[in-house]
């Protein structure tokens, strides 16, 4: 709750997961040569109402995490209701029929950590409680899964619309470059595409949400057969199974939801967007390409490309833009992985006295050079080590592991996807990486500038003819 929408934009693959390299494998995925064998022991089963359950013990501290994923994200919103999946997530914290109190109230006083997040593709809810309080967490989590609506009122809805709109003001409207994500998604994904408007949504759509919308959304998506439950940490499996069967067994199943079928989109021409932001201290530029979905061929390769391009002071982009030419203050590169389609993105802050067009030209020169020479095996080996380290870092908390078990299950069908995930980076050969680089980073891309004030006219001989230029101010 304290978070949400932007989580959608974190690359999954870049935030890999953990666990002891020598753990007993439950179903050990085949590892690529040289990949560390990482595995998390777990067991899984499905309740008669369709709720999938994954249990993973970890007795390092007397705490246990309950982590529920619903396979619904902002991509599933109806036209005119952008921001609704996230608003709904907030309503899940407003009490349910048998626990009609702020969701935090009974949990916080037993020392729980509680939150939920919404992104383009899914919504998650999680609470870490002292081991003794597992029944409390399962009761509350199951009650809002089955009995949210009887406790819902128009007053709660109105209040959370205000809260969510303040979240948008705080994280998007009131900060420098806060609208960059909105511009990127709006211009990369056409009107009508489920990713056209990022998760946070538009003020007027959030305001328009009604109780009828809430009831419909709940009936469609918040059914146990569209959810999976991970219990991870310090618990006795026998006790946990009894509790789960008791509390979740009577949550009624619903019709099988049918996610929208979406075919990948492509830009058919280069696109240049010049926006202004009165809060921005400097001009900033983004180059963005549509790229393969999370876990699809090319996804891990592009993570490796991002490391090779901009990790460290000796990386080609940083060296040329920031150190040699000194036309940029910083530069970063990321493969932002999503379920339907991802975004490969380069962004840089322009140094005073220079222009975004200069920076874009310099980035293009570096890219041309890297494409011509190719990323080397040595650069890949270095990048793989970075991913190995990041992977360990991201699995060292029980909650991170729990969330990853749900993510792997949801996206690949195998909760213990840790080893297979990391193995992708070891299986990526220079040939595959370079082919992906040349294939994805083609001429049809989005070039976004956000400048403190009206940008200077574009240079006389622009590269290929840009699509319509869009202007937007810092305020909605």
């Amino acid at each position, binding site marked *: 709750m304290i978070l949400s929408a932007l989580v959608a934009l974190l690359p999954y693959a870049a935030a890999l997961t*953990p*666990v002891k390299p020598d753990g007993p494998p439950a179903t050990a995925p085949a590892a690529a040569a040289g990949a560390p064998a990482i595995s998390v022991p777990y067991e899984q*089963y*499905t309740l008669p109402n369709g709720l*999938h359950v994954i249990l993973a013990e970890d007795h*390092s*501290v*007397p705490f246990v995490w309950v982590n529920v994923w619903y396979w619904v994200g902002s991509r599933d919103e109806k036209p005119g209701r952008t921001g609704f999946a996230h608003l709904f997530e907030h309503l899940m914290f407003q009490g349910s029929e*048998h626990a009609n109190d*702020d969701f*935090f109230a009974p949990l*916080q*006083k037993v*020392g729980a*950590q509680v939150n939920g997040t919404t992104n383009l593709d899914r919504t998650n809810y999680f609470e870490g409680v*002292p*081991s*003794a309080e597992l*029944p*409390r967490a399962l*009761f*509350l989590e199951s009650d809002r899964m089955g*009995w949210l609506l009887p406790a819902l009122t128009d007053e709660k809805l109105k*209040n*959370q*619309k*205000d*809260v969510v709109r303040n*979240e948008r*003001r*705080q994280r998007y409207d*009131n900060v*420098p470059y806060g609208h960059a994500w909105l511009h990127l998604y709006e211009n990369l994904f056409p009107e009508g595409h489920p990713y056209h408007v990022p998760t946070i949504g538009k003020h007027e759509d959030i305001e328009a949400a009604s109780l009828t919308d809430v009831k419909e959304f709940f009936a469609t998506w918040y059914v146990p057969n569209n959810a999976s439950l991970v219990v991870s940490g310090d618990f006795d499996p026998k006790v946990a199974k*009894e509790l789960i*069967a*008791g*509390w979740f067994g009577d949550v009624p199943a619903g019709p099988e939801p049918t996610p929208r079928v979406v075919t990948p989109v492509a830009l058919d021409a280069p696109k240049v967007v010049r926006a202004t932001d*009165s*809060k*921005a*201290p*400097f001009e900033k530029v983004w180059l963005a390409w549509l790229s393969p*979905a999370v876990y699809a061929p090319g996804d891990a390769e592009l993570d490796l490309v991002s490391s090779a391009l901009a990790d*460290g*002071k*000796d990386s080609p982009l940083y060296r040329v833009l920031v*150190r040699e030419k*000194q036309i940029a203050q910083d530069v970063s590169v990321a493969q932002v992985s999503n379920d*339907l389609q991802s975004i490969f993105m380069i962004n840089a802050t322009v140094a*005073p006295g220079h222009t975004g067009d200069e920076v874009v030209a310099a980035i293009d020169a570096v890219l041309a050079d890297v494409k011509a020479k190719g990323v080397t095996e040595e650069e890949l080996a*270095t990048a793989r*080590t970075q991913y190995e*380290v990041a992977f*360990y870092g991201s*699995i060292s*908390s029980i909650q991170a592991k729990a969330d990853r078990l749900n993510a792997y299950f949801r*996206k690949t*069908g195998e909760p213990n996807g840790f080893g297979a995930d990391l193995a992708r980076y070891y299986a990526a050969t220079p040939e595959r990486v370079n082919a992906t680089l040349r294939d994805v980073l083609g001429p049809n891309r989005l070039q976004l500038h956000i400048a403190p004030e009206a940008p200077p006219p574009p240079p006389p001989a622009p590269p290929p003819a840009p699509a319509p230029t869009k202007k937007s101010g810092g*305020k*909605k």
Partner: protein
Amino acid sequence: MRTALLSLLVLCACAPKVPATQPLVVDRAAGIPASLPTRPFVAPETRRATLSNGLTVVVAENHEVPLASVRLAFRAGGHADPVGKEGLAGVTLDMMNEGAGSYDAMTLSAALKRLGSDLGTNASDDGASVWASSLTRNLDATLDLMVTVLREPTFPEAEWDLLEKQRVADLDRRRKDPEWLAVRVFDRVIFGDAYRGRAATKASYAAMSTADMKAWWAENLTPDRAILFAAGDVTLETLVPKLEARLAAWKAPERTAEAAGQAAKPVSLATPALPAGPAPIHVVDRPGAAQSMIRVGGYVTSPTDPSWFPLVLANQVVGGQFTSRLNMNLRESKGWTYGARSGVSLDLAGGRFVASAGVHTEFTGPAVAETLAEIEGPRAGRPLAAGEVEDGRSAIVQAWPLRFESADYLLTQEESVWRYGLPADWTNGYLGRLNAATLDAAAGAWKERVDPSRLVVVVVGDLAQIRPALQALGRPLIEHDADGNVVPAPAAP
């Protein structure tokens, strides 16, 4: 995507159905179910050793993943920057990563990257640190690089030319950040031109040379001002010989007895008194802002004062958690904010209480009034109730084991003990001290120490829109620029 979905559903169907367990008979109408038996928890402890050069080494083991980190903390920081050279400590530490021994900035960065290691050099107002983290298998090579950076920084002129431009640009960036502006003005009002009230400027950067940095490094980054913390997949037995081999020759400079005595003691600065009151509202104009940033607070205690734990407890109720009075009012009842909170924290000047929220421009005036009213509540009108105080206490006590899931918390606490001169049993005695704080003590400390009419109030927002509502609160408004300087008031209305 469709294909992926179908295969997933098939997998679900293939998974084993319900395990052979008796379903529990549940009664939802009975509300929160009974707890399971409590599992005992014993907090992990650190282990210590002293190197031959006198440096203390503190280790917190955690072997869950093959990663280790080592951090040297120093009793030296921005609080002692010379007048006119504000920012010197920070820049000196930054520059250590730009060249050391035979490495230049790029070869150092490349060497670390090949190892998958990180190496950081930073200073804050209160301290400085040089740290590294790495895969266990690359710890030796990483320590070599860390010690090179610690002992042989080269402070290259060309790197300072580049870094200075970046730091100056940072100043411009911060002036556009509403949260930073609120903190800046708050600190400036409280400290004037001392401690947190000072900040680097374009002029102070221009006044610094690499010779200043080298001198600051030589004087301050010495073993007699340092302590070493290690965490993760290491043991004291394996680490100490590695450190001894690399650091035995690292010695403190010759100092007078007085200087040596000071280097060995925590730094302590005077605690600023609250304004006599009634306090004005300090404002910063940010035309077009969608929200206003509110910050209310002041120095009200110190961690060794008997009021510390009672205030921590009272704060938990007022603004220290999601279900606090402040957040439930401003967010869950009024819908004016994404979140409002308060905290009690310590620094070199003592212990401060700060409440903060970003609120919708339209409701700025009432949100300031409600924030002050929630702080006033326990003092008059809405006394702390036993139930909410016990819930607040329980929230901290029961969450305690989770803090030890990684080694970081334990070491952060140990560093506070060392840096701020806290009792040696600060961590182990924490829950005991908190549990000893009574409802009466919490209510009494709050009443005596946290008087909202004397707290500093800062609001950063669109003045054209919020000024009338703020004026209606009956306190004088003082306008500041983005550097915290007072803007002369226009002719009286």
